């Protein structure tokens, strides 16, 4: 049975579990032939799966729920990431010590479906983002951390496992940085989960395949957590661009392991509800307008993990 998995981003340790499962034959053991499709800055996994280009995708829950409200029936079948790795990183010299100080500053934000958590947070803080008085100026942040280094933005979005370390690598010491983790600010939303199309779940054969897929993937994740350096090397081998470095991937794997640590793959309904509440609480312009229903199923993980 063949399965196509569309990643949300390029090949990196953020997706180590899947590469490890593939490399170590866990998928094969389940009788699966898994093709991992790397993503990129302009790949919307939701679109790929809607077009039939993938069977299962890695996506962030805010984006998946927003898509669901648009009529694209995405269903969460597993949640390998327990914690959120997103944060806002600021230069200390800009005098930002608390979210109160954001006002009047320029903040770098990732768009393309990644902006939902930020928008929820700001509306919770009551800070306008449309450039009006007393608000923040939002920049669509490009690929990297340059806006911070070039002082084009006071704060930028970073992931604990990736961009943050690029700032450090650039030569700025951790002491010169102030970070705001979304989790600490009470606006955490669930990141990398596995999603499939709702209509296909009606097919028992597909369900069966997904059960095997999730089982093997989680085996891969737990393996990666246990052997981070080995996992990083596997990711490196699978990077076709040849651009990743060993040091960066090993460190990323270490950080990613902290985020996956609390999860056996099953979605924690409390996390789901917290995410939904955050997204619904978006003030005048919430990300989703009504409580979603049927946006997740525990059947797959229940079957996979018994």
């Amino acid at each position, binding site marked *: 049975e063949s399965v196509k998995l569309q990643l949300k981003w390029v090949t990196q340790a953020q997706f180590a579990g899947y590469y490890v499962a593939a490399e170590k034959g866990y998928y094969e053991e389940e009788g699966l032939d898994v093709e991992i499709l790397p993503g990129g800055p302009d790949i919307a996994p939701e*679109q790929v799966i*809607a077009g039939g280009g993938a069977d299962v995708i890695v996506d962030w829950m805010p984006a998946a729920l927003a898509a669901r409200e648009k009529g*694209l029936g995405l269903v969460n079948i597993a949640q390998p990431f327990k914690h959120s790795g997103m944060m806002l990183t600021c230069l200390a010299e800009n005098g930002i010590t608390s979210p109160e100080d954001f006002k009047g500053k320029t903040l770098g934000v990732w*768009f393309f479906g990644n902006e939902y958590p930020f928008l929820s947070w700001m509306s919770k803080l009551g800070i306008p983002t449309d450039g009006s008085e007393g608000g923040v100026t939002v*920049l669509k942040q*490009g690929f990297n951390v*340059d806006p911070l280094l070039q002082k084009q933005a006071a704060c930028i979005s970073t992931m604990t496992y990736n961009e943050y370390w690029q700032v450090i690598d650039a030569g700025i010491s951790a002491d010169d940085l102030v970070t705001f983790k979304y989790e600490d600010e009470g606006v955490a939303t669930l990141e990398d989960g596995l999603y499939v199309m709702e209509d296909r779940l009606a097919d028992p054969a597909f369900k069966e395949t997904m059960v095997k897929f999730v089982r093997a993937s989680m085996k891969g994740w737990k393996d990666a957590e246990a052997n981070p350096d080995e996992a990083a090397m596997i990711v490196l081998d699978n990077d076709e661009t040849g651009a990743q470095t060993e040091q960066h991937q090993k460190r990323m794997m270490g950080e990613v392991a902290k985020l996956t640590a609390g999860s056996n793959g099953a979605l924690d309904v409390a996390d789901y509800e917290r995410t939904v509440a955050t997204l619904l609480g978006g003030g005048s312009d919430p990300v989703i307008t009504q409580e979603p229903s049927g946006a997740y199923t525990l059947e797959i993980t229940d079957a996979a993990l018994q």
Partner: protein
Amino acid sequence: MSAVGWGAIAFWLAAWGANSFLANRYPKAGWVKALVPTLFGITLLVLWQGLVRGLNVSPVILPAPTDIATAIGANIPLLWGDFSQTILKGALAGYLIGCGAAIVVAVLVDRSPFLQRGLLPVGNFVAALPIVGIAPILVMWFGFDWQSKAAVVVVMVFFPVLVNMVAGLAATDALSRDLMATWSASYPQALVKLRLPAALPFLFNGLKIATTLALIGAIVAEFFGSPTRGMGFRISTAVGQLDLPLVWAEITVAALAGSGFYGLIAMIEKAATFWHPSQRGK
């Protein structure tokens, strides 16, 4: 093949037949010149609508024209804001600077054999740097606002205009040049009176290609960092939000603006190169 497919083909043939008939029957009439492309466009749109609906294409893959029209109607102020940010500021400024620079450089290069041999290959090389590579760098250098978009446009339009202008400056025939020589015309005189007019048909070639490049450049550059407005910003954000009708609404605006821009240049071309066989023939 499905009924939808056959229906589409039959419709296409019928529409094309009607168009051919009109175009050949009334080749000179002004109303035909407007009607034929319109009919052709309507044909495309009807086909699109029919195929999307008939084949049940998911709206997050390709929305139907009616959805796009609705999105345009609902977002006029938004679209206007994006239009002025991207096209009026980024694309236009970049176009003027880039084309101007290319013309000046072409003339300089043409003037000096030394520069021609030295600068042209190097210039070709620099101008061939792909936009997607330059855009992030230019955003880094010129900031997030429209200035960096204009810079990307400058880089993009420079090469096509340069190549065409250099070819145009070389396009005079021997007899015309000999005439200038017998009058011992100075270089600027020969340039203004002979080479520039003779280069115009080529130059306009470049300028026309550059109009569409300018638009693409300005929009694409916004993918690499931008303020929270602009057509490129809106497109990439809306794709991420699966708001495809809005994406296509922006694309429609881009296409309309681009066609208008191109049409404007083509009109100027017609007035400036009325003497060229390609214009006289029609």
